[in-house]
């Protein structure tokens, strides 16, 4: 089990757990980030900037802070 933080550009993983408080989970759910969904890192902004990620047809930018709370399973792919 790793976090989204450890994926490099172009890699994907399956969301295992959202390790955060209930409200933030709710928010991420509404944006399409749910357990069991495939998440792909499209690119990372320079200077430890945000991640550009894709879930289904939705693309988001997410900061490292939040990315570190998303646990994924990259070996399944």
């Amino acid at each position, binding site marked *: 089990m790793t976090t989204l933080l450890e994926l490099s550009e172009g890699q994907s993983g399956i969301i295992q757990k959202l390790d955060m408080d209930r409200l933030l989970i709710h*928010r991420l*759910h509404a944006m*399409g980030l749910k357990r069991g969904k495939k998440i792909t890192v499209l690119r990372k902004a*320079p200077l430890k*900037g945000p991640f*550009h990620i894709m879930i289904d*047809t939705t693309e988001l*930018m997410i900061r490292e802070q939040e990315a570190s709370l998303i646990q994924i399973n990259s070996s399944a792919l």
Partner: protein
Amino acid sequence: MKRIALLGMPNTGKSTLFNRLSGSSARIGNWPGITVDLHVVKTILAGHMAELIDLPGIYDLQGLSEDEKIVQTFINHNKIDLAIVVLCSAQIERQLSLLLQLQKLNIPCVLALNMHDEAKKMGISINAALLEKKLKIPVVKTSAKFGEGMTELLKASSQLMSQNVATPIKKISPLNSSDQISHQKTIQTLIQLTVKYPTKLNDKNTKKLDALFLNPFWGLPIFFIIVFSIFQFIFTLGKPIQDLMAQFFNFFRADYLEPLFTNHHGIFQSLLLDGLYLGVTTIAAFVPIIILFFLIMSVVEDSGYFSRAAFLMDALMEKIGLDGRGFVMMLMGFGCNVPALIGTKIMRTKELRLLTMFVIPFSLCSARLQVFLFIITALFNAKYGPLVLFCLYLLSFFTIFISALIFKNQFKNKEPIIIELPPYRFPTMNHIIKRSVLEIKHFLTRATKFITIGVLLVWALTHFPMDVPIASELTYSGQLGKWLSPIFQPIGINEQLVIALIFGFIAKEIVIGALAVIYGAEGTALIHHLYSNVTQIQAISFMIFTLIYTPCLSTIATLKNESKNLSFVIYSVSWALLMAWVFSFIFYQTSLYFSS
């Protein structure tokens, strides 16, 4: 009066749909407990007078973000007869949850599957008829951008409204986890039944454009070129229009108004011309810039580039508590602070927006530039002049960054910054023009009173008592200047210049005019007068103070309009005054020390 709410997630084309349905008659409405402006339009539906309200785009009914709170308050305090739920067809799987949450409250809903053209292009097909049956509500495929499905949507809405269901609407209560799971299951079944996805999603254009715009090497240079071009476009086009307007206003004053009032008492004429008329023209000068700004910003926003800019600048701006979008607005402030402040609307988290609004007034706008150019030409030679100006720009950036750093904990952003990067889309002219018109209407209605009162106040200060020369040391402003001299003396600003600062409070454009009145000299004569009466060090100190102390009445009025928070405005202006004094003091005293 029936009440129809337009609801949907961000980036679903909800506002475009609102514009389609509203024609050009939208206005800004006020609602109990809600502190932001909502667009509303009156219309007739199924023989009922109805008001259609464009609620902010939200991801979720439950959340705690500013926009979510607004929608919650609205739903809990206002009876909604019908909700038109707008979703982006290509993202139906993620967006259906909002609809289910609304249905759970017993609000009658009509579902608009918007951007169905886009979904079709991506190879996604939705069986609307089956979805309608399963959800038990009317489902209409629309494309607000091309005006498709609008009549069908209105028809479905009026049919539903005439059915007159009398189920009491529930208040929003927290979703428990069993609700959440059942929602998820419902959505899964619905999607499996009604939506067909292609084996591989077909959105090559967005991928290609992102590869260019978000390129680790080229992304930032392209970003700066784009921002620079926007800036150039707005202000090189806006300036001549502003100048033309100023010429017209002067001509109108000299040829029509002044002859009209020659027979009247001097003070009455002065009140009308130097007071009210000045106020009106001050406000009018902003109109072309605001319109141009929103024309361009709507394009940038609707195209999807704005969130890319946020992505690019985020790493840097995060350190000072802002985000990439704030950076764009801050740069726009270097043209004019007023539209930049209104433009922060796009940032949907309150603290982030307030902090951005807090720092924008320190951007060296074109009006301040005019003052600096005049003073620099008067007092510095061609060798040092540009250097002085360059340092003022540096100082402007410095004050922005230092203020953001100092206050970032006070306006601490509690929301996670997760921003959607929607596909690149071609903006539609219709939507863009309507948005600009609405923004300008809003500025005029809200700012006029505030600015007029401010102008009249300054007029009274500089014209009373009546038997002394205008703007002289004997007027109230002069007395105020004398009274304030213990404060301004240590920073090298004399009493006459204090009067100019009081004028500058209205708008920087009139500072030079004010100096002309104060010193009783114009043009080259004024330049000579300044040259022999003000030292270079004093002049720089005056410019530092002018840069920081407060941009203009219109900026303050806009701060008030947009924040809806008077104490925020007072806080912001006090900080500006304090910082202006401290920087001028440091500069003036060290320069004196080293030059002696």
